[in-house]
């Protein structure tokens, strides 16, 4: 296991280097000028020329890449062109918010989605299954933007049960988590249902029933565990994407997470902020994938990394 972990972490390095190169190149061939956003309106061209020089923006690409990479190796993601603040600090300040929202959304998606999927597979074609299949269909189809605003209108503006947006206590987490998790609830429900249905046809389920095990034990212990693998894959992928920032949900709910930071950085062409964010989020994504793989082994003893 330790050897596997070490190997996996080692393999991550070239991946990250690749990310670094691609992000750097893409940003530097994209149009737009960070200096324009720095100086605002009414800046004379001499100011712009001076700042470009100050930021090494006119140096040849390879030299700039070396300068940047040298910083990364020292653990320095650089400072924002716009705010002058260190990028790493900005990301670390916002990441806990993103983590909180991702955990809440995932909790909702896993518990809701798996419950719906299991019950649906247990009595396929029943009224619960049919309503939930429709619900899952709608859940996947509705755009996040629309769902978020609708939830705000109903639960905050009309009913006054929850605050419309912002961060604070648990109450602030409910609506954004629902909005963000809704799609995953639907996907996980459908995955669970399909996998469970297949598993419940298997011979060993018939044997389990034949030896007189209770229905709950048959479905949950013998059925679910075997149906879990594809579901874990979906959970891992969705969680990874939540952790790397949910721009729409964070924007609608004024949630101060990394998604909005990245969006702002892109709109201002804040190169160090964009590159630093991409790198940071790649590390997060890779780590989530690694954890997913480890959970695989736990769920299915046939998988072994030794």
């Amino acid at each position, binding site marked *: 296991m330790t050897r596997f972990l070490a190997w996996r972490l080692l393999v991550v390095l070239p991946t990250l280097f690749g990310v670094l190169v691609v992000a750097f190149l893409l940003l530097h061939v994209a149009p737009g000028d960070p200096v*324009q956003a720095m100086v605002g309106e009414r800046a004379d061209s001499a100011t712009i020329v001076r700042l470009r020089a100050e930021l090494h923006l006119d140096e040849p690409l390879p030299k700039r890449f070396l300068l940047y990479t040298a910083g990364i190796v020292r653990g320095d993601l650089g400072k924002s062109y716009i705010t002058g603040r260190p990028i790493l600090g900005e990301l670390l300040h916002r990441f806990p918010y993103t983590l909180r929202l991702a955990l809440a959304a995932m*909790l909702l998606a896993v518990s809701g989605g798996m419950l719906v999927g299991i019950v649906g597979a247990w009595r396929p074609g029943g009224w619960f299954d049919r309503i939930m299949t429709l619900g899952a269909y709608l859940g996947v189809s509705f755009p996040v933007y629309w769902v978020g605003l609708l939830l705000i209108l109903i639960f*905050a503006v009309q009913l006054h049960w929850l605050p419309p947006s912002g961060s604070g206590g648990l109450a602030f987490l409910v609506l954004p988590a629902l909005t963000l998790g809704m799609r995953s609830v639907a996907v996980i429900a459908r995955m669970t249902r399909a996998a469970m249905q297949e598993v419940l046809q298997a011979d060993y389920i018939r044997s389990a029933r034949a030896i007189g095990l209770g229905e709950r034990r048959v479905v949950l212990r013998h059925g679910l565990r075997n149906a879990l693998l594809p579901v874990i894959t979906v959970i891992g992928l969705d969680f990874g994407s939540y952790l790397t920032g949910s721009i729409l949900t964070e924007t609608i709910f004024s949630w101060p997470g990394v998604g909005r930071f990245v969006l702002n950085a892109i709109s201002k062409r804040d190169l160090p902020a964009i590159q630093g964010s991409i790198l940071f989020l790649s590390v997060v994504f890779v780590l989530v994938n690694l954890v997913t793989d480890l959970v695989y082994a736990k769920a299915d003893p046939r998988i072994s990394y030794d």
Partner: protein
Amino acid sequence: MTRSLLAAVLVLAACEGAGGPRSLTYYFTADPRSLDPAFSTDVPSGELIATLFDNVTQFDADGRLVPGLATRWEADRTGAVYTFHLRRDATFHDGRPITAHTVRASFRRVLSLASKGSRTWTLTPILGAAAYAAGTADDIAGLAVPDDSTVVITLEEPLNVFPKLLAMPASAIVPESIGPDFSERPVGSGPWKFVSWSHDDAVLLAANAEYWGGPPASDTLRVRIIPEPLTQAAEFEFGQLAVVEVPFSETARWEAEHAAELQRRAALRALYVAINTRRGPLQDVRVRRALNLGVDAGTMLRNVMSGRGVLSAGAIPPGLEGYDSTRAPYPYDPAAARALLAEAGYPDGITLKLWRTQRTELARIAQAIQQSLALAGVTIEIVERDASSARAASSKGEADLFLTDWYADYPDPESFNYPTFYSKNAGSGGNRAFYADPVTDRMIMRARGTPDAALKDSLSRAIDARIFDAAPWIFLWFPADLWAERADVTGWEIPAIFNGQRWRTARRVP
């Protein structure tokens, strides 16, 4: 696993502090760039700096220039030497006094940060300031401090808007020695003291009970960062925000449901299409006039902007000297537009690229322009880019047409002709039409320099009339601001200029 997840969520959750009756909540659409005045180039930081700091001069909500740290000031006969007399009772929030030396140190600091991207243009009219900023002079020749409460400023050349430049955020007065985290935890002297700032979330301010102008009517001011306009509206209807700008798409509903809460004010802002006067057929004034005749701005204003604005016949908006309400806008006349194009040598029409940013409001206007001009024989290709790329292309002169708007930096007609039409400001300086006319240049410089207010007024009108004729813009309209105010809020009005609202009289009446 599930239990530990739940525990993590619960542990991370904190309690939300409830705002009392003497607290106010306001909002920005974006996080301020920095709370260091030297780097204030964006509207949110400018608004906050007006509450946290004092300037030598400042604007009231109606956009009038009023005393700040200076109780009075006068210019000499040439209009190139200004003397400011400072009040003696002003102190920073940490108790340090503000003297003329503080003012000088503060101005030197902004200029010395030029290589870091500070906003210097509010101070560079001072004699020797540009050299000081460039590092070629050890001192600012035109900045003298004869005693503790007097600042004498000599300018490179006469400039009548100079006292207004000192009211801009970048000219705010900061303490002489400041900590390294000043941009995050500023110490000012304004009616509000800084308490905390959680990025992309909220800024909290507390009333300065010792303010020389008297303490604010409320105890705390919380400024939330809410990027989405419909969420802003929801927060207002929920009861949290004291005031909100009505989203354009919601105008009709709010006029019906919130009529009693609405406030309107003509904005010092022009919405226009910059015509690059250096490119191909656009060099011909007949083609530029044809574009103006071919755009049905009246219908667009009604349909796209719910009538929130006044059609423009020039660049100077209503509410400023130099605005001429008698001049009629270009009429909508596609036939006349075609005729003018034919006369200019384009009987088969022309094809132009119209650049725009991704603001939804601009997307609909760009489409309307495209449809409108098609009838006049002008084929428009819309180029949609993010704000940074579109502005960069326009600054380099690569865009035929650029749909954008211009906000007043300070309430003065000069803010609508010097940056936007003076030849040396072509490109990023604000003259996105690359308009260059020696006569206009001379008129602009004369209007800026004269100490005679009546002469400036008539010159401003003449400049605007000349620009209207030369048509370097497709003149669209001057938008009107529409805000809603909670029924229990008093003492607040829409500021005429972005940094004219210092939140000193606003409060909620229980």
